[in-house]
């Protein structure tokens, strides 16, 4: 059986490695020095070191990835999401090296990867796009002119960006100089292309995307929608499928539009058409992600289709295992992304040691993760720790299941967003719907429950008291183990 190199890390690398194993394919992991002992390294059959921790020295080094594939005899590369997944140059290098890149052609990646080109292509194919520039914006003066024309607020976006990164909202002309420079710098740093473009900011739209699958035999299908409007920092944190309130008419129209968009670039593999939807259910093409999405589990749970399995089939030249008429949504799926970040301080990343990690188990729950208790969440990469998905026969029960599962999630060692996710899930706007991308901003500041505060304080004193008592009978210097364990508690140092 062929061997697949997984050019990624964390949960998505683990997800893909498991899918390969289930198909009987060999697996090769790659890792940076920060990930030497990571889960994906242990899960794969083989593992190859790439380089130092920073992405640009390891996971973004396409040359090293290809060398690792050649060294281990891997004939396919799965890029996951992020890193090299939407890099058409890497795709071409794979082609040149005779390695099958699991994804669309370099042509499709280029057409969709450069957002300005994508907007032009979609516009030409009759797919509605958001008002704004169809061309890249080269200078501040040009940006200024266009913004004045379409009117503030506007969005500055990295032409080669994606995943919510490299996006800035500007509310007036005063913000433009710094914003334009910052957007260019970030775009250059993260996507290797400093080109930015401008779109009219549709404030608080719904963000709904359509999953597509296409094989090399001319079959292109869609797997309905995912509602991704719960965002912070322009990044999704909760997704669901089906969307909470969306007419069947719009759902089908969006599906057809997505198939048309994919066919316009001869798309092959799994991809996503991201759309903005306004209150009248008008939808606009925003961008296409030419890769697997973080939130693919909700589509898998709702449709019963294994997207990674289909990706692997297609890459090996087979037909999709399902036809459009087989795709039926059943029940309701919600995904929550668990991040190492501090919601009380603007969601700043909070890397640290995973001192406690016991995810909730049970009926209708799915965990996608790439860390275990004891692991350190490295600060070099994305701060997502795990994805918790809940499926149930209907939306209210999926919400109740997610709510109960979040409450049971045992995790500690750094700031995380679980209480924030609970707050969103419990909010009336989320529960009743429809909601839009403004949802998170409308919530009151997060307050950690004061319930049990007294029990916790009492326990802190009791625990310390008992540590002290346990030490007392010992002579000085004895009982080193206990001392080492307790001496790190601030209060025990008689400073």
């Amino acid at each position, binding site marked *: 059986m062929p061997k697949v190199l997984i050019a990624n890390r964390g949960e998505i690398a683990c997800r893909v490695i498991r899918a390969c194993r289930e198909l009987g394919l060999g697996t090769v992991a790659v890792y940076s020095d920060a990930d030497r002992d990571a889960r994906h390294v242990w899960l794969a059959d083989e593992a190859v070191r790439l380089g130092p921790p920073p992405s640009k020295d390891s996971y973004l080094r396409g040359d090293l990835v290809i060398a690792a594939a050649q060294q281990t005899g891997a004939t396919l590369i799965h890029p996951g999401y992020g890193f090299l997944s939407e890099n058409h140059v890497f795709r071409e290098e794979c082609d040149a090296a005779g390695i099958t890149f699991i994804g669309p052609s370099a042509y499709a990646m280029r057409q969709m990867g450069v957002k300005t080109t994508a907007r032009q292509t979609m516009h030409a194919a009759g797919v509605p796009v958001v008002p704004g520039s169809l061309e890249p914006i080269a200078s501040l003066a040009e940006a200024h002119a266009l913004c004045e024309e379409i009117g503030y607020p506007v969005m500055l976006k990295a032409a080669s960006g994606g995943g919510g*990164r490299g996006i800035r909202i500007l509310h007036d002309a005063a913000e433009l100089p710094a914003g334009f420079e910052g957007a260019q710098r970030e775009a250059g740093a993260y996507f290797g292309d400093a080109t930015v473009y401008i779109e009219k900011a549709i404030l608080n739209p719904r963000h709904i995307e359509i999953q597509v699958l296409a094989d090399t035999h001319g079959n292109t299908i869609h797997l309905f929608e995912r509602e991704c409007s719960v965002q912070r920092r322009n990044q999704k944190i909760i997704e669901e499928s089906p969307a909470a309130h969306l007419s069947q008419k719009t759902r089908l129209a969006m599906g057809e539009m997505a198939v048309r968009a994919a066919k316009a670039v001869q798309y092959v593999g799994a991809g996503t058409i991201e759309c903005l939807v306004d209150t009248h259910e008008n939808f606009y093409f925003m961008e296409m992600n030419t890769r697997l999405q973080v939130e693919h589990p909700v589509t898998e749970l709702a449709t019963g289709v294994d997207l990674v399995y289909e990706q692997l089939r297609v890459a090996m030249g087979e037909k999709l295992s399902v036809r459009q008429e087989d795709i039926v949504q059943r029940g309701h799926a919600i995904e929550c992304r668990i991040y190492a970040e501090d919601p009380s301080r603007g969601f700043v990343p909070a890397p640290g040691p995973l001192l406690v990690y016991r995810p909730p188990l049970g009926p209708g729950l799915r965990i996608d993760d790439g860390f275990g208790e004891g692991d350190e969440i490295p600060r070099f990469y994305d701060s997502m720790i795990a994805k918790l998905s809940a499926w149930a026969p209907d939306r209210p029960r999926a919400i109740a299941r997610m709510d109960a599962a979040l409450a049971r999630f045992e995790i*500690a060692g750094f700031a995380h967003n679980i209480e924030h996710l609970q707050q969103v899930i419990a909010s009336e706007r989320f529960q009743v719907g429809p909601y839009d991308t403004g949802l998170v901003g409308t919530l009151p500041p997060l307050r950690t429950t004061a319930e049990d505060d007294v029990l916790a304080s009492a326990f802190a004193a009791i625990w310390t008291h008992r540590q002290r008592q346990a030490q007392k009978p010992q002579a000085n210097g004895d009982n080193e183990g206990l001392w080492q364990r307790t001496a790190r508690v601030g209060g025990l140092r008689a400073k």
Partner: protein
Amino acid sequence: MATEYRVKRGDKIETVTVLEDRGEIVVVEVDGQRLELAVHALPDGRTAVATPERRVALRALPTKQGLLVVDAHVQRTFEVEDARVSWLAGASGGKGAAGGRVTASMPGRVVRLPVKLDEIVPPGGVVAVLEAMKMENDVRAPGGGKVVEIAVKEGVDVESGALLVRLEPVHD
């Protein structure tokens, strides 16, 4: 033998007196309120703490920042001091006022320092931009003030808590 502890959590300081420790029953007084608690070790390393109305399973984890008490995913960090010890050491309490010190809220790389020495920064003004986990994060001076020290350079990696910029209050 009652022992009195000062239990600090953020700005809040409580006095907890362990009046009696009879193993599975512990009597404490928290800021004057007497509590009889059932306390016992659970097999997974947590400790059950219960009043007649309420029971919780808590995990105690000593860390550099203090004693981390975890209830599922709710985390509370305490500094616990024997009241007598800290009195002996002088009743000053608290660490060097954090007022004018702007520190890194996370480990990361300093990508920009948009302030100069002696510059007056408005309250909430950005004094540094840190990059961590692929995001640029603005570091702000909540109270504002005059920049009297810039402790780092652009491009360097800093740990969480590292001093970035020191400010002095501006009186007008």
